[in-house]
């Protein structure tokens, strides 16, 4: 028993060690803290953003498509609403859909990659041909074509479809990881010991890949944001009254943001949001890269 006690005590210490390692990694480059803060900001925005504004958003019909001012930092849209308010309230749809996309992408990609890499043989061949195919077919054009058939009626549906279309990369990467881990002695040893596949996959493989999967998930989130905003921007999806992509669409094709500067604020709002989200995720992934690499963490 004392053995057990000691082991929990040390694992607590290990955990402390881990967090101090994390802190070290963060401190090494302050930009990473910026990334974490930005990311937290986006999460907060998606969760609580809409609560700060009325429904419908306050608007001023005498201030249609105005450039930035003190009152409206990024100007107003063609309905006289504040662009920042639009970006904040619009984030929920975008981020929710992106989250759904990411979850599906990662779950599906991991499952397929694991299965394929672990089973190998015929299944592997079939699944990887499929994945290759998925990866070769350009995603955006496919989405465009699909948009003629599919009705993207809600954020969740949107995320679902995007997720179903984007697991390829993760599957390929997870498979490669699985294959390389498979070759590692410990997986073979576990098989030799007669441990169940569930154990091998759940306890040995997945934990080894967890950081990698987490990073992929973050990257999948950006992917989800990009595709749906892009589709709305092109105007191939049903109108959504408050969405970053719709804002881009209205700004460019209706308010002439690329012809006159007055609508630039309206255009910049969602663009900045996307840039900041990308930056946040790039910085956090950069940090995670080091955090989950014990060697780099402890340096």
């Amino acid at each position, binding site marked *: 028993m004392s053995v057990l006690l000691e082991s929990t005590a040390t694992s607590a210490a290990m955990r402390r060690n881990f967090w101090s390692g994390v802190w070290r990694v963060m401190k090494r480059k302050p930009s990473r803290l910026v990334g974490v803060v930005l990311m937290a900001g986006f999460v907060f925005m998606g969760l609580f953003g809409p609560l700060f504004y009325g429904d419908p958003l306050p608007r001023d019909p005498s201030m249609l498509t105005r450039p930035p001012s003190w009152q409206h930092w990024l100007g107003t849209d063609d309905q006289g609403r504040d662009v920042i308010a639009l970006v904040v309230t619009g984030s929920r749809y975008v981020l929710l859909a992106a989250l759904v996309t990411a979850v599906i992408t990662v779950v599906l990609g991991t499952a397929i990659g694991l299965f394929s890499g672990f089973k190998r043989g015929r299944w592997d061949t079939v699944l990887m041909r499929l994945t290759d195919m998925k990866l070769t077919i350009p995603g955006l054009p496919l989405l465009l074509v699909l948009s003629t058939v599919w009705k993207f009626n809600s954020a969740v549906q949107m995320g679902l479809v995007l997720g179903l279309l984007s697991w390829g990369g993760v599957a390929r990467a997870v498979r490669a990881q699985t294959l390389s881990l498979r070759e590692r002695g410990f997986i073979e040893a576990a098989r030799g*010991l007669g441990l169940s596949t569930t154990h091998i996959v759940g306890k040995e493989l997945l934990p080894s890949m967890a950081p990698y999967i987490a990073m992929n998930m973050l990257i999948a989130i950006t992917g989800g944001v990009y595709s749906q905003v892009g589709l709305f921007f092109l105007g191939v999806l049903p109108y959504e009254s408050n969405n970053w992509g719709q804002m881009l669409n209205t700004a460019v094709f209706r308010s002439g943001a690329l012809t006159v500067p007055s609508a630039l604020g309206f255009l910049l709002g969602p663009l900045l949001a996307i840039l900041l989200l990308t930056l946040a995720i790039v910085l956090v992934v950069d940090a995670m890269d080091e955090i989950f690499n014990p060697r780099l963490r402890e340096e």
Partner: protein
Amino acid sequence: MITGTGIVKTFKQRGKVLGAREVQALRGVDFAIPKGGAASFIGESGCGKTTLGRIIAGLETYDAGDVVIGDVPMSPLKPKQRQPHFRKIQMIHQDPYSALNPTRTVHQTLHAPLSLRARQTGRSRSWMEERAAEVLSMVGLDPGSVLSRYPHQLSGGMRQRVVIARALTVDPEMLVADEAVSMIDVSLRLGILALLKDLRERLGVSVLFITHDVATARYIGDDGELYVIYRGQVVERGPVDTVIADPVHPYTQSLLSAIPVLHGLELPAEQPVEPLESLDESQSDEGCLFARRCPFRGERCASERPLLQVTEGVPQEHACFYPERRSVIARPMSEV
């Protein structure tokens, strides 16, 4: 008792549309390892040692022949049914670092097979803890300090011991040690070898020892057998000391000649064989596999393949038409 009869394994370089390449890794290998016994396999790189080890441990399939565990032949069984039998044979990997999951502590590593076993036999949690401590003690580790550590916090020798301890959790009948000491510091090697020998003696576990360092084969136990493999074929087989001292197959002789002499401790051999050129895989398979490199080849060798056999006056089995004992290894200074 674990025996193998005529095991054949051919690898196909898979994939490309046209022209698959085939590698004959094993060409009908027979072996028999009694309970508690030991067998060592030596041979140059690529001769099929690892492949054989993996086949015996149930990690690789084979194309012909059979592995018999106890008296159950494996071929007729379905993969699922083979599993419990192969579990009696545990593999010890060459690289102790990759053989342990870096994300799991020693405790967790041992826990998984133990809980499986506890479940099967209806034993309690406390048994698991006891058993974990027991196997660690068995391999000469202090459970208290080791259990909570991660692999990267252990030295190579300790890691290898943990690997062996893990294998012991399932009460194996045989350990397959593939170059189990080659990646461990020289000063620690003997410790692991002694451990394997000790396990044989105490637990009656048989050991299949794969090595390229013939000397280490002696440390598994003096009752062991030595198998010399060349290009997937056993060319010489006999008690370790006999084969080392009086090799009859030219290949064994070349191999032993290549072992550096510890000048100062040893004297050079009396009849050393000139070093061979490196193996060329693309050589033809006709006749004796070794004929092209053999310094003593005769006219039969080019057309006929010798099989493993016992001949008059030679204590060990060999696959050579012209067996001749040569003293190719260094002699200890003390003897002179």
